[in-house]
């Protein structure tokens, strides 16, 4: 039972002080979660704190490797719209 942070983390520090288990620390390139220490906030909070403040979609994964905040869930930008706009910018 542990969450993980992947390389899309932008190192904003928001999650680190919120963790009730002191499981989050700055890694070499981005923040990381110590899987042994992470409790998924069980017993402390209803929602995992790191995933509740993280502004980056896809940066935090649940124990099964699924993004807790999937594309579009935080910014409100429909993923197909983002893809289309990015493709258009690349084509310029």
């Amino acid at each position: 039972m542990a969450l993980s942070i992947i390389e899309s983390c932008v190192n904003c520090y928001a999650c680190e002080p919120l963790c009730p288990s002191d499981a989050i620390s700055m890694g070499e390139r981005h923040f990381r979660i110590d899987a042994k220490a992470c409790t998924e906030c069980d017993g402390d909070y209803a929602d995992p704190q790191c995933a509740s403040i993280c502004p980056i979609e896809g940066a935090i994964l649940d124990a099964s490797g699924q993004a807790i905040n999937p594309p579009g869930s935080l910014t409100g930008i429909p993923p197909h719209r983002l893809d289309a706009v990015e493709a258009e910018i690349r084509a310029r």
Partner: protein
Amino acid sequence: MELKVIAQDSPAPTGGCTSGACGSSTDAMAHLPDHVRKKVHNHPCYSEEAHHHYARMHVAVAPACNIQCHYCNRKYDCANESRPGVVSELLTPEQASKKVLAVASAIPQMTVLGVAGPGDPLANPQRTFETFRRIVDKAPDIKLCLSTNGLALPEHIDEIVALNVDHVTITINCVDPKIGAQIYPWVFWNHKRVMGAKGAKILIKQQQRGLEMLVERGILVKVNSVMIPGVNDRHLEEVSKIVKTKGAFLHNVMPLIAEAEHGTFYGVMGQRGPTKQELSDLQDACAGDMNMMRHCRQCRADAVGLLGEDRGQEFTMEKIEAMEVDYSAAMERRARVHEGIEAHRKTMAQAVQPTKEMLAPIGTPPARIAVTTKGSGVVNEHFGHAKEFLIYEASPEGVRFIGARKIANAYCVGPDVCPSGDDKGTVLDAILAALFDCSAVVSAKVGIEPWSRLEAAGVTPSGTYAMDDIETAVRGMYGELIEQGWAAKDLSVQAAG
């Protein structure tokens, strides 16, 4: 230079009055207690005049944020405090205080230190307040300020008061949760991510409470709003009224800047920003209500320097680590420089005695005049080196400041390198677009080539007022225009972009 404030004899219309018709009211600050007015009058950030002489700096110590705004992409710095797409070098409180001391001893004009990002200062209370504590200890001659979205403001009031923070800026884009839901997709509150209108309602309540508490404790509060056409543009006049009633001393309306490249919600969804005219109309409409800040430059979260300049490159952490700073010696030097500045400001204020006389017969149309300056309140920048134009409006009743307009590139790239061929045209086109409503541009010097293009575009260039104080120069130029029988520009026309 003391700008004469133009009185309004009739109450400002609440709708979009044209820029020519309403000036900033003499009573714009009448609702404020004396000590606040005095503080504002001398403030490098808030007094248009003091702005020419003193500087502020920001340090990027606060990376985390507790809300999401639709005009912000969290891969970059907070969009309220920076131009979009900028990433600041994150500093620890220790590095930041080192940097502040180094800058303050090199640039004695630097008198205000702000924490504004790259996230929200109060979402990083330890880092923000530790930075402040270090500065209070070592450099008591520096004023502190912070900018916040307001969500965590009420819980930190005591600390803000204890550290003697000089002023706080709150970004308030709405007072209606339904509008808020179109601006803020979520807030982090009470250990939960709260989405939509429910989240916006919490944010609005905290902002208003924070504003009230700060005013109660005697701290200057400025309110910033981002103008988002079709979302909150019609709503901001109400916001302006409310924040004024609660005691904010200034309301600053900034334009939304949204480009697809920034990857923000608004950028990707094609939300447009306001035109210059729409922005100016709203600022006028709100100015009838309270003092508006027109000289705000939307500086970066790690900006250093005077007016629009940014000397950040001289103070990278690497360079600072190598510096030896003796701050007590620096503090004496700074005090002497500040005395000199005050003496200079006094002479300038006396040089331009506000006259009761009209500048021109009643009925003469107003003219907008662009000025280039490096600071000190005088015309001392060459046209070719200016990356920013200060726009003034002269009318029979007097001179008033309209705003600062930045351009991406100065006409000349270096002290001696002025453009040739096609580049010349494009750079000048951008300058002409920025000066669309101006009838003249007053600089320390104007080169021959831009001179003729400016003339052809109906903007009379002048180098006659080099080193004159700005108000004298603008008055003189207005007189010249009248003498020439210039073709007055329609100041209510819609500007492109």
